[in-house]
């Protein structure tokens, strides 16, 4: 019953999206580029394919995937293990490039960019949160959060980093090193690091995968607050239905293809 209601809602949304796409298609026809239609749209993925070759066996990790995410949306990507969720996230996070298809982020086609340009986009426009936290050991929480700003050449990295840690409720743990923090706290440091550059979008690949339910809820609360109060665009990959339910939209993926 509840499920039906949700489907109905997503159905509505899909309908809206289809119309929106059509409208965008029209605009592309008029202006020659969808890059100029960026007012509401955070990112557009079109017909993206990614293959992995293992010996002479080829795995189609992503099979002509298309999706659109609006600004200030909070989206969940769900699907079975091995369905291609992480592969998609890596492409969305500019950590990897698609074999074919287009990826337009923030009005700019980034699917053909090379190393340094991608690094710049990862640095300025994307905040990535990993399942395994991926904090640098032997560096304080503050130094970890500072890192993206240092690569950006930010003049007041320390101050900004401290602010970001405050936002995730870790002002009192700034000088702790990762191994002196709990799993939930580590993930909050990672979130602070993801949002410190004020990116357009935060991508989180199973951010609660290594956490107990209480910490998971805390982390989700942080994401929800960032989405509602600051209007940040957030994409979360998850296995857990409760987590997915907290997002405005769910994208289901199976065998490298988007179901809904």
């Amino acid at each position, binding site marked *: 019953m509840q499920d039906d209601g949700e489907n109905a809602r997503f159905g509505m949304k899909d309908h809206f999206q289809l119309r929106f796409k059509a409208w965008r298609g029209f605009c592309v026809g008029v202006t020659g580029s969808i890059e100029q239609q960026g007012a509401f749209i955070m990112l557009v993925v079109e017909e993206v394919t990614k293959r992995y070759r293992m010996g002479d066996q080829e795995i189609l990790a992503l099979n002509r995937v298309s999706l659109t995410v609006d600004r200030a949306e909070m989206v969940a990507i769900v699907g079975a293990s091995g369905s291609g969720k992480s592969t998609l996230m890596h492409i969305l996070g500019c*950590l990897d490039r698609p074999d074919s298809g287009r990826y337009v982020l923030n009005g700019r086609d980034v699917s053909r960019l090379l190393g340094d340009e991608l690094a710049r986009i*990862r640095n300025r426009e994307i905040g*990535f949160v990993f399942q395994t936290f991926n904090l*640098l050991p032997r*560096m304080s929480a503050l130094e970890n959060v500072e*890192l993206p700003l*240092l690569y950006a*050449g930010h003049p007041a990295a320390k101050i900004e980093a401290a602010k970001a840690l405050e936002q995730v409720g870790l002002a009192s743990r700034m000088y702790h090193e990762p191994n002196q923090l709990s799993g939930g706290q580590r993930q909050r440091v990672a979130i602070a*690091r993801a949002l410190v*550059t004020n990116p357009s979008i935060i991508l989180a690949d199973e951010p609660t995968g290594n956490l107990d339910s209480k910490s998971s809820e805390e982390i989700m609360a942080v994401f929800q607050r960032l989405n509602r109060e600051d209007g940040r665009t957030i994409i979360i990959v998850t296995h857990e239905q409760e987590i997915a339910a907290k997002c405005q939209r769910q994208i289901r993926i199976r065998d490298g293809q988007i179901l809904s």
Partner: protein
Amino acid sequence: MLILTLIKVSLKSLWANKMRSFLATLGIIIGVGAVIAMLALGEGAKRQITQKVSSLGSNLMILRPGQKGSRGVQSSTYDNLKLEDAEAILHKVPEVLQLSPVIRGSAQVKYLNQNTRVPITGAAVTYFSIRNFALQHGRPFTDAETREQARLAVIGSQTADDLFKGRSPLGKVIKVNGLNFKIIGLLKVKGDEGWYNPDNQLIIPYTTAMKQLFGLDYLGGIDLQIKKGVDPEEVKKKITAVMRHQHRIPADMPLDFTLQSQAEVLETLNSITLALTLLLGGIASISLLVGGIGIMNIMLVTVTERTREIGIRKALGARNRDILRQFLFESTLISLIGGGIGVALGIGICYLIDSIFSFSTLIQPTYVAIAFSFSAAVGTFFGFYPALRAARQDPIEALRYE
């Protein structure tokens, strides 16, 4: 990224692997230490040789009678070097500033109950300036006194100590082979020169030495001082021509004398020390090179070990060049620290050599600077390949690395 952050990060990661970092720098430490010590040894030897040779006199040339029957078992020197030869050279070769006939021998010297055998040098007054002999007290004999065959002597400091036990020798009369000689001068200490000791001798007028003491009508040699700035080779040719004429030696016959310039001696000795220095320095540089390979090895391990860190940094927006810079900086820092310790080690070795072998090494600051910067260059050079490997990691694969 800020250089300060870079330093901090590098120092931290070096400190986290203290033992490994130390082992990595060991090669550089030994290399730099060895290079500095070897060069200091060579420079010290060079300085010592230069000092010794120039204390013999500047622009010195030494003419000695040749060996008779060069192939024979017995060889004695020719006794045909005459005073007239010296005069001819002085008149016909204007590049010769001054010269002095030299008679060498030894005699029994007595003063009160002291009795010892002392080397005797018969010479002209010019000998003192040609050979750089300065007087502590008194005066040398004059030209007039030389013509009169005066029995006057200038005494070496060590001989004076032996005979007079610290009292002033001036004005004292000593017996040399039974003849009375008055001491009118005391030489300044010059220091042992290895092949002969200038502090142990009596210098007397050559006329007195020839006619009264040894009864000779030929010379033991001629010491010449040539003018500054003239080519010693040219002067040698001219003197040789004069001597051929004097001794009537046809152009195709061998000479009956030898003529050596101090510049030549210095050059030969210096080229020997230079070759030795280069050899030793070269061997030491090889260890510096081996040290570089050690750094490369450690850096490759480090890069592999920190693959995940590289992935994280790239995910956060580090460009390839940021990663390259970080690891390059680290390897340079390792070798700089190694170079610093190596400099200290090298200086330490020099002190050790000086105190154990009573030799004085000479540490040239420029060589220290060169060895130090070379070590930094070694670190940068050998760190480049590992750093490049780090920089070229694919972010996804690096993040997946366990």
